[in-house]
């Protein structure tokens, strides 16, 4: 999921709220398909495709209809709420005792649930970093990166920025929906509310990743996103164990992200403050 947010927020420079809906969409699609007896791995693929469709809607609203990116995302997110209810048929679906991708691995390798979560999570992370690194190194991928960087230059080089943004948003939301599907399968349930705050969690992981694990090359950036997400989970687990009520979790996350995002401004204020002090000293 963090990788999805990374694509929209850092590469495309768009805060895409669609993810709040597409993560649930992924979960809903998996829940629907698994309860009706389909293969859980296939359901993940369909979840990914569903997410790209959500990204396509946001992309079209933003580029072709010129609705601001933030609002386009909100519109799709709200619309997805109804879509998700339709897909699930009710507000939450239990997947207990059903065949999920995790139970398949458990049966196959004879390991317990926790190990299979680690195996699938690890494989997904490594695989996605690899695929994304390849994709953003291609001609199309470079064009998308450049679009987030400098749209004027990109148009002057004959690239359709609208198309680039749409592809980027589709990929981002596809990844988020895929992770929604994985979450539903590991938790054994899908809930229509589960997407609330997803963008903030994604941003938190992104920022932690950048701060702790650096942002030098593109490859190391992608990897740091993964470690950022893991670190975020560890922090949350620690805070909960220290006795913070689970109800306060989202408030805690929001405050953390707000602080992290305002760091550059704090640095600026500190520097002007320092400058004014040293200036006064010189005058005295």
């Amino acid at each position, binding site marked *: 999921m963090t990788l999805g947010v990374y694509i929209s927020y850092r590469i495309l420079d768009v805060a895409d709220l669609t993810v709040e809906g597409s993560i649930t969409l992924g979960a809903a699609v998996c829940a629907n398909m698994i309860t009706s007896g389909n293969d859980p791995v296939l359901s993940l693929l369909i979840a990914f495709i569903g997410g790209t469709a959500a990204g396509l809607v946001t992309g079209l609203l933003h580029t072709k209809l010129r609705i601001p990116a933030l609002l386009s995302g909100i519109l799709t997110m709200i619309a997805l709420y109804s879509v998700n209810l339709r897909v699930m048929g009710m507000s939450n679906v239990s997947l207990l005792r059903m065949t999920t991708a995790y139970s398949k691995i458990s049966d196959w390798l004879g390991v317990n649930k926790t190990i299979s979560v680690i195996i699938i999570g690890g494989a997904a992370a490594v695989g996605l970093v690899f695929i994304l690194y390849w994709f953003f190194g291609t*001609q199309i991928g470079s*064009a998308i990166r*450049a679009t987030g*960087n400098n749209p004027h230059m*990109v148009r*002057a*080089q*004959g690239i*359709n920025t609208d198309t680039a943004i749409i592809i980027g948003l589709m990929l981002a939301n596809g990844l988020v929906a895929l992770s929604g599907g994985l979450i539903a399968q590991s938790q054994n349930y899908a809930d229509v509310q589960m997407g609330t705050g997803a963008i903030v969690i994604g941003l938190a992981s992104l920022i932690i990743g950048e701060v702790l694990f650096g942002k030098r090359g593109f490859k190391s950036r992608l990897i740091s996103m993964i470690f950022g997400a893991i670190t975020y989970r560890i922090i949350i687990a620690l805070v909960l164990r220290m006795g913070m009520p689970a109800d306060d979790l989202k408030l805690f996350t929001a405050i953390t992200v707000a602080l992290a995002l305002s760091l550059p401004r704090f640095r600026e204020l500190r520097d002007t403050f320092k400058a004014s002090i040293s200036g006064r000293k010189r005058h005295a």
Partner: protein
Amino acid sequence: MLEIKNLTKVFNPDTINEKLALDDVSLCLNPGDFVTLIGGNGAGKSTLLNCVAGVYRQEGGSITLDGQRLDRLSEHKRAKHLGRVFQDPLMGTAADMEIQENLALALRRGMRRTLRWGVTSEDKALFHERLAALGLGLEDRMSVKVRLLSGGQRQALTLLMATLKAPKLLLLDEHTAALDPKTARKVLELSERFIREMGLTCMMVTHNMRDAINYGNRLVMMSHGRIILDVNGGEKRKLTVEELVHMFSAKAGEEVMSDRMLLS
């Protein structure tokens, strides 16, 4: 080759800020023309260039390049035929991408982009050679992020990107105005060299009268959205800055010279 006919551009139409930026402008460029476009602030030079590039849509008139109606194409489709360098050195390159990645984007201008790897080893060899020709030592820093380059280096890189695939028409929009005089001179000389060596057709907007006289084979002066002077070849070579200033005040009818023009 480039035919601009009765081009009209109005900014903020039907409001109190309405401004007629281009007033029935017609201009014809011959293949190999290197036109310097001069005029005061708000004369419409940059607007003219941006209309050709497709940044703005005109209200009336037509732009034809080699028989093709350019004004019916979107900005990114026109880019196939055009090389552009902007006034702001930050505008022409993607700051967070490597020098070679920027060049690779430019190399495929007007071509279909595929899922093939962005920068191949043949590309790198080509870039190395072209960068070496700039004489700025950039050929040994190809994997450096463009953000770390100076304004002059970025402008030279943008110029190289604009001409990497020979464009039918090169548009230089005051591309040395933001540079210090020494760097500006270097970038200008580089521009002239590229234009000469590749036999490009070029329109260069400038505020600097001396540059407008020294470079190119044709000088076009604009004022209030109209072309007021168009001199060619030998006649242009004999021009002096004083004459140009004189002609400008005579033609424009009033004293509308900007300080920037007089100072330069």
